[in-house]
């Protein structure tokens, strides 16, 4: 059950591509793979621990004030991440910039606290948090890789194909919209084809 919950967050209910949550940091941070991994790990940390704590105190929180309570828990972990980055990884902190404190309003985290962690035991909540976090990170890395390769002819900071002039628009804002638009369309196409095949298989049975 735990493993199932974990993998659901990566594929069937990928927060970015299927649930369409957490789009702001996805578009903004995906200019390079390094930034993508940094943001993904930070958000996963917050997600796992906030799910853990919300699940722990779920019976103590009155229904009426549950949203502010979740917000306080999430904001606490986000501030912990902020302080950690400022102290030990200042370069990453500068690259992620405004989006570190914005992890607090990342719809994924509040969404999972409300929809899952408040109704499920601790172990499942942590698995869900981890799964969603990994799914989020993978989505970020995919976008980041595409934009970095096409937009700056590099991967992880190293040049890829010498002499190739990259399409700079990919690392500018329109590039983010383009990439995610086409990726979503691509996944929708795959889903449609798979459903068509399944329908034909059940028809022929």
């Amino acid at each position, binding site marked *: 059950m735990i493993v199932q919950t974990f993998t659901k967050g990566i594929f069937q209910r990928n927060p970015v591509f299927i649930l*369409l*949550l957490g*789009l*702001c*940091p996805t*578009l*903004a941070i995906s200019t390079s793979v390094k930034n993508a991994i940094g943001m993904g790990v930070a958000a996963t940390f917050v997600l796992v621990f906030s799910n853990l704590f919300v699940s722990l105190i779920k019976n103590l929180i009155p229904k009426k004030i549950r*949203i*502010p309570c979740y*917000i*306080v828990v999430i*904001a*606490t972990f*986000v*501030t912990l991440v*902020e*302080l950690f980055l400022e102290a030990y990884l200042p370069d990453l902190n500068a690259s992620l910039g*405004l989006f570190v*404190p*914005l992890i*607090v*309003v*990342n*719809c994924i985290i*509040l969404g999972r606290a409300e929809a899952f962690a408040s109704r499920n035991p601790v172990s499942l909540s942590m698995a869900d948090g981890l799964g969603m976090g990994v799914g989020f990170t993978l989505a970020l890395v995919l976008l980041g890789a595409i934009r970095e390769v096409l937009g700056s002819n590099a991967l992880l900071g190293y040049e890829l194909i010498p002499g190739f002039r990259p399409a700079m*628009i990919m690392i*500018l*804002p*329109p*590039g*983010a*919209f*383009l990439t*995610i*638009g*086409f990726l*979503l*369309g*691509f996944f*929708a*196409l795959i889903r*449609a084809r798979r459903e068509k095949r399944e329908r034909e298989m059940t028809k022929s049975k």
Partner: protein
Amino acid sequence: MIGELLIIFIGVVLVNNFVLVKFLGICPYIGVSKDLKSATGMGVAVIFVMTMASAATWLIYHYLLAPSPSNIWFRILGDGIDPSSFNFAYLRTIVFILVIAALVQLVEMIITKTSPALHHALGIYLPLITTNCAVLGVTVLNIDIFFKEGQAVPWSLLKSLTQGFGAGVGFTLALILMASIRERLELADIPPSLRGAPIAFLVGALMSMAFLGFSGLI
């Protein structure tokens, strides 16, 4: 003075549009822009919340949290104590988001009493303004400049208010443009896998490209 404020306003509405350049407020941009009326309603609510939030958070940061001589703790307990030992700046995230959540509750109560029709139209999108990255984003941007400059003159309340209001206007502009286009898109012939979110993002890409043209404006 007016010139500076005008530059900040135009900067944040066109050059650094919150949605199309800074990627703040994407969720409602894709989610609420299906028809013009709800887009406009959402936009106006956001302008209101952003402006009030800018004012409230600026005051709280400047007088309660930041390590500066005007900090209230310093003034009360001050005299001989180093102002930097009252540095509560790290609490800004938690304090700001709670202030915004409270403000949104307030706006919701006001709208329910004064215009139930508008409340019905906005539906669940109103409480969602709390998680709108653009609102928290603009409040953090307002005080970030103060913090970085250190010795230099911090952004005044007036500049923060202008930026907050302008950010809301820019957000509403992007939302209205997107909603108008999407209403027409309903009648267009779009490949099935691109319908819905994908084509909205591609339209966003084109709009973002157009707004790139404002880059060197100020």
